[in-house]
Each structure stands twice: as C-alpha cells, then as structure tokens.
C-alpha cells in the first residue's frame, strides 16, 4: 500500500511547505502570516501519517528493505551521483521519530511563537513591535525546511545524498539557533554550532573522499549506501582494499558523527545552541538532528563492525561523553542547559551502545529518548513561558501554578532517569546490559562510566525538577539580572497548543519502552521485536537476556541520585548546595566552567593559535612580504631610471662623451673580444 511516490512525498511535502512559506508567504503575504503554522502542521501531519504507514509496511514486510531505483543527480564521465530512497527498519524508525516529534513541536510552536500570545509580545522576543509577524512565517519556514532535510537525511540512499542533507540540517540548525539574530549570543551560538559541526563534517568528507578513492574502480557504485554496507566488508575480506582503509573510512564517519551528535570533544556547540527558540531545541537539539550522528554510525554499522579499532573508539568516546556531559549537567543553572548536557550524555549512551555492538538498543534508546527529551524541552519552554527566564535560580514553586507541565515534566524526568517501567528504563537498561555482556576492557569501562552517569542523570534531573517546581517562586525574569531579553512573568499554565503536545508526548515517554521492545512476548508483540527487526539483516550475535539484577542495580543507583537531589534541593535541605559546592571546591568550579574546554577552544585554539597566530602571520606576510616585494620591485623599477638619468645633465658635451665612450666600448668588445 505504500509505494515509492508516497515515500518521496514524506520528504517533499514539508519541503513544499517551506517553499510556500519562504517564497510566498514571507515576502508577499506577511500580514497573513498566521497561516504559516497551520500550513506547516498540516504538511508535517501528512508526512507523519505516511511515515507511520511506511513504518508498518516495513515492520510487517519480510523483505525489510525497500530500495528505490536511484535517480541520477550528477553524472561526470564515469561517475554517477544518484539520489534515491533507502527504506529499511532504521529509516522507518527515524521517519516516525522525526515526523512525530516534529509534529508535536510544530503544534507547540503555534502557541509558543504566537506574536499575540499575551500582549503584543511572545515569550522570548523583545524586538521592535512590528517584527512579530515576520518571525512567525520565517520560523515555520525554517522548521519545515529542517523537517524536510532531516527526512531527506534518514531516507538517503546515496552517501553523497546523505552528506547533502547532513549539511542541510546543519544549515537549519544554524538558522534556527540564530533565529533571534539581533541577540549577539544567539548569532554567536549559531556560528559556533555551524563551525564546530563542520569540523566533524570535515572528517566525514575525508571518509567520503577516501571511500570514493578506494572504490571508484571496483565496479559497483560504492556511493550507494546499500552497496557499501553489503559489499565493502567483502572487499576487505577479498583483499581488494586493506582493513586499514576500512578503518579510516569508519573513523572519518565517526568524526562526522562526533560533530553532529555533540560528542566529546566537539560537544561545545550543543549547550550554546540553547540560544535558539525552545521548540527548536526540543526538535533539533534533542530529538532529531543531534541523533544524526548516531544514525550515521548505525547506518554504516557493517563498516564499523568490520573495524574493531573504531568500535573501540566509539565505545570510549560514548562512555566518556556520557559521564563528561553529565558532570556539567550537575551544576548548570539554566534549565535548558541541563537538558542540553543531558542530551549530550544520552547521545553518549547511544554511541556506547553502538560501540559495544548493540545496534538495536542504541536505536531503541534513540527512539525513546527522542520522545521524553522533546517532552522535557517543551516543558522547559512552558516554564519559561510563565517565568520569562530559563535560570532555575529564579524559578521555584511552579507545581501548583502549572500542574500539567509539572506532571509531564516529572514523567519525562523519571523516564530519563531510567525509572521502571518508563520508556527510558528499558532502553537504557538494554545498553548497560549489552556493555556488561560484551565484557572486554573498553566495554566494562564504558559500562562503569555509564553506570555513574545513571546516578548523575537522576540527580540533575531531579535537581532541575525540584528547583523549578518546588519551593517558593523566586521572581522569574523580574529578578534575573540577565533576563532583559526574556519575557514577562505571568504564572499560569501555558495555553492549549503548548499543553497538548506535552500531554501527547508524555504517553510514549511512559509506554513505548515496554510496548515496543518488550523483554518477553507481550500481547502479540514478540520479545525484543524492535531490536530484532532492526538487527535483522546484520547477523549480529543474539542479544543477552534481560538481567534483572543489573536492572535493579541501575534502578537503585538512579533512585540514589533522586534521593540525593531531594536531600539537597528540598525546602529545607539536609545538604545545602552551597556547602556541597564548597566541599567539592575545585571540581565544582571545573564543572561549572565546563572543564574550560570552551576556553581552550575559543581563547587558545581559535584566538591564540588561529586568529592571532596563523591568520595574523599570514596577513602580515601578505602585507609585508608578498605585497611589499611587489612594491619594492615597482619602486626599484621607477627609481632605477633616476640613476641613468643622472647622465642626462643637459651638457651637450657630456652627451657626446657618453656616445664616444659607447663607441669605444662597442669597438673594444668587437675587436678585442674576438
């Protein structure tokens, strides 16, 4: 029932929405910009429905993969770059995640971004009054473009096509982070996001070049993803390319993934990206785009599988990132930043999972995470809507004012913390199980780091929850010294378009863990149906059986974290945060300053080494050596004549003398010279 055209439509409908909004509504019908939201929502809604249909088609199809005929995009000589659709379970899952979360976020945005939401201003926007409407159309145009690009990314059948959309989602991220371009911080964050991810893309690009270099003469079109996955490992086995080459390709791709998914050491852009509108953070920087890195590794999993070295690196990076980000989340005061660190940390989990070979669990976590993290972000937006600030130090006591927000946020937090039986519990547990089960040194290290991260996650999430919703209200944007750019305080529950997505998203945050991938056959759903489906064609070793002990241990650790948070942030804490800060001392400072990584990057590498180093020297060389040489040559040319000109004294006899001497010299040369 689902055919190629309809799959294409999943991609093209949001794109059409973008074109409509960007080329027609924004420039010509800006006064009717309120139609932008519905246009975007309807288009994405259609996509969502089609995606669901596709998902079920793929889920029920024994063939698993629907590969379309590639369409030629660019042919140069013998080289063909094609575009097509690669439809396998991974794609299908991603389609659902992307369209689903996107749909929710768009609905949410209808309320969140609405110019006439309350008074003449929306929550985050304090610009000149006439600017409300343009923002609306522009916003939904970008969002549509993003959705389209993301869909294009997950559907790509060709690695170049994938790279194209890979970059395009980066563009949308750039545009949306910098959505409030009049705020220097937003503009800077947008730029940072783009450049840092570009460093990752540089790795991806090299992988691409290397891949092409190694395979362009090997018959098949090795730019097709299906061909790569099916044949490339075989080439290594056949000795046609070296294992090192494969490793390099995988490594390059992983560098791309590091950049996109905010893994250490390229994670710095993601917290800063919170300068974008909150729905954007929910969609792009939590649920979808940042998972593209994970998706990429998953997409080329056969390659990674054949490169144990890279798998090791993936494991380590994943584990390190998981805990590294979590530590920073412990001390952040901005609620969105807490969530952002949490996102980085959870992405680390997914990488870890991939690193230990747990392909299915990684995607499973991606799947569950998308929903509850989007929920959390939207919740933080809702909070912001009321308080006008994101700084948790100026919040508090919102539980009664905003019950729905509170409950959904609580669900999300519990899910994220991995509390039984919410979605997060199941997916995280799978990862820990796999890491433990793999049992080599790296996996155990990763496992340990992840386990510690579980504790931290629970702690910071409940820290955030308690600071935001419990206790007394601490003034919101009225008190926040940095809140000039934020909205006014009006402590009521958010409007319907914002609450609805919260409620809807809370449902999957609870149920999809068990329902989608139950540990036992459950009401017609086979055990581990989800992961099995995903891993079907990969011939992975059978997954380890559910280990209740491990589950209990991890749950206990999570509860411990919650307990500690409660102890520190309840109304009359047993442990005052300030005391803890003093006790932790330098570590606290280190966490608060994000390990000084930003400083190293911005001040040292960018500033000292590049801007005031290489660039300065190059500029100096250009001005003072290259250009000056030219000028000196010019000056010499212009002034050398003056020397000869000295002979031109105006004395007739001088001239005759010169001539005579000239004659004598010539004569001497010719008569004595021969």
């Amino acid at each position, binding site marked *: 029932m689902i055919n190629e055209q309809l799959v294409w439509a999943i991609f093209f409908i949001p794109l059409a929405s973008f074109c409509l909004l960007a080329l027609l509504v924004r420039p010509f019908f800006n006064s009717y910009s309120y139609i932008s939201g519905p246009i975007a929502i309807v288009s994405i809604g259609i996509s969502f429905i089609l995606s669901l249909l596709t998902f079920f088609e793929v889920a029920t199809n024994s063939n698993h993969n629907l590969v379309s005929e590639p369409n030629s995009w660019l042919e140069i000589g013998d080289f063909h770059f094609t575009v097509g659709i690669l439809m396998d379970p991974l794609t299908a899952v991603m389609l659902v995640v992307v369209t689903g979360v996107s749909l929710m976020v768009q609905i949410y945005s209808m309320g969140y971004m609405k110019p006439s939401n309350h008074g003449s201003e929306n929550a985050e926007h304090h610009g000149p009054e006439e600017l409300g409407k343009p923002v609306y159309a522009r916003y939904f145009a970008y969002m549509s473009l993003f959705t389209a690009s993301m869909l294009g990314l997950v559907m790509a059948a060709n690695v170049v096509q994938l790279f194209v959309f890979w970059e395009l989602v980066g563009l949308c991220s750039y545009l949306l982070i910098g959505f409030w371009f009049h705020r220097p911080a937003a503009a800077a964050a947008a730029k940072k996001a783009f450049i840092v991810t570009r460093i990752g893309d540089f790795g991806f690009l090299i992988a691409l070049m290397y891949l092409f270099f190694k395979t362009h003469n090997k018959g098949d079109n090795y730019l097709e993803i299906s061909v790569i996955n099916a044949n490339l490992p075989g080439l290594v086995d056949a000795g046609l390319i070296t294992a090192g080459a494969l490793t390099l390709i995988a490594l390059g791709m992983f560098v791309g993934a590091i950049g996109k998914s905010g893994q250490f050491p390229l994670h710095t852009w993601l917290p800063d990206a919170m300068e974008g509108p909150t729905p954007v953070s929910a969609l792009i920087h939590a649920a979808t785009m940042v998972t593209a890195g994970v998706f990429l590794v998953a997409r080329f999993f056969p390659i990674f599988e054949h490169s144990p070295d890279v798998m090791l690196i993936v494991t380590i990076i994943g584990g390190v990132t998981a805990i590294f980000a979590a530590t920073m989340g412990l001390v952040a005061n901005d609620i969105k930043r807490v969530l952002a660190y949490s996102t980085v940390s959870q992405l680390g989990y997914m990488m870890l999972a991939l690193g230990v070979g747990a392909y299915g669990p990684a995607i499973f976590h991606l799947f569950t995470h998308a929903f509850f993290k989007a929920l959390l972000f939207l919740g933080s937006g809702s909070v912001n809507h009321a308080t006008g600030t994101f700084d948790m130090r100026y919040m508090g006591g919102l539980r009664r004012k905003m019950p729905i927000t509170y409950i959904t946020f609580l669900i999300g937090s519990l899910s994220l913390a991995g509390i039984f039986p919410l979605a997060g519990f199941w997916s995280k547990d799978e990862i820990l199980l796999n890491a433990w089960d793999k049992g080599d040194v790296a996996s155990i290290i990763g496992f340990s780091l992840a386990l510690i991260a579980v504790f931290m996650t629970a702690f910071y999430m409940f820290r955030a929850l308690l600071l935001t919703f419990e206790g007394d209200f601490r003034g919101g944007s009225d008190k926040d010294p940095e809140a000039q750019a934020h909205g006014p305080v009006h402590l009521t529950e958010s409007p319907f378009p914002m609450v609805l997505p919260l409620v809807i998203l809370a449902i999957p945050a609870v149920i999809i863990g068990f329902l989608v991938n139950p540990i036992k056959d459950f009401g017609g759903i086979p055990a581990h149906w989800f992961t099995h489906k995903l891993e079907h064609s990969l011939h992975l070793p059978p997954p380890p059986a559910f280990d209740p002990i491990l589950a209990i241990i991890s749950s206990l650790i999570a509860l411990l974290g919650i307990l500690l948070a409660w102890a520190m942030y309840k109304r009359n804490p047993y442990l005052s945060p300030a005391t803890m800060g003093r006790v932790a001392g330098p570590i606290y400072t280190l966490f608060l300053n994000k390990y000084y990584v930003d400083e190293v990057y911005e001040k040292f590498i960018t500033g000292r080494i590049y801007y005031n180093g290489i660039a300065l020297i190059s500029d100096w060389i250009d001005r003072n050596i290259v250009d000056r040489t030219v000028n000196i040559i010019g000056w010499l040319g212009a002034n050398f004549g003056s020397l000869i000109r000295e002979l031109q004294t105006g004395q007739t*006899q001088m001239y005759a*003398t010169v001539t*005579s*001497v000239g004659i*004598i010299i010539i*004569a*001497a040369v010719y*008569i004595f010279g021969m």
Partner: protein
Amino acid sequence: MTLTTEPFAIELAFWILSVCTVISAIAVVQIQDLFRSALFLIVTLLGVAGLFILLGAEFLAGVQLMVYVGAISVLIIFAILMTRDLEEGNPSHSFRVPVAIVAIIFILFAYYVITQDTDWNGRLISENLDAEQQKVAATVFFKESIPYLAKMLLTDFVLAFEMVSVLLLAAALGALALVRDR
C-alpha cells in the same frame, strides 16, 4: 712620377706638414684666446691643404683654400667678433682630462686597427696593379685629376651633387630664418 717610390723631399714635406698640422690643431683646442685659435685653425687647414697636394689632389687643395680658409674661417672669425663683447676667451671644460683620455684612447684604437689589425697589402695600388695599370693610375692622379673629378661629379655622383645644392639651400634658409628679426 711613379706611384711606388717616394722622393726624400716629399717624405720631408710630409713630416713638416703633418707636424705643423697636428701642432696647430692642438693649439686650436688648447689656446686660451679664441681669436688666436681661429688663426691656428687656418694654419691647420693650410697644412691639410698641403697634405692634399702631397697626395696629388691639387684641386682639393684649392677647394680647401677657398672654402675653408677663405669662407668658413672668415665666417667663424666674423662670428667671434660679433660675440666678442663677452670676453669669454676659449675655456675648456672641467672634465677635459677624461675627455682627453677618451680622445687618446680613440687615437690609439685607430692606430691599432690601422696598423696591427688590418692587412692593407691586398688593397694597395703598389701591390696590386701591374706597371701598365699603375701608369694609368698615375695619369689619373697627377695629370688628369680635375677632368676626371669633374666627370665623376657630373655623371656618377650627379645626384649627390644636385642634392648638395638643395642642402645648401636648406642651410641658407635655416640660417636666414634663425637670424631673422624679432
């Protein structure tokens, strides 16, 4: 008279004339009084006329006397007298020494080329003509030089001859135009 042997008297005359010519030429360029150096120029020109006679060119000697000594020198002296009120004498440049060196080098150069670097034997009448031919040549030089010269001027070089008159016209025109009234 033959073309091969030189009587001693002629030899002597050559030396006297050439020494006189050279010395007076040097005087022309060295004497501090312009008027006197003009007179020495006349001596030089006369010396050259004498040399012409030695070389069997009586007609040229005559021309030399009439054109140079008679006309040019007088013209020069007139010019000197016209501009005499300046009392500038006949000074030399400050860089006369290097110039002298240049001139001496030139002379030495010419000397080297003429005597050392060139084989004249293949070109000399005395070496290359038989007696009969030398007799013809002697006739041309010493007996019939003026008719021969006239013939040449009016046949072979008639164009140059005519052109010289145009040249003189041009010179006269130019000179007249330049000394015109203000």
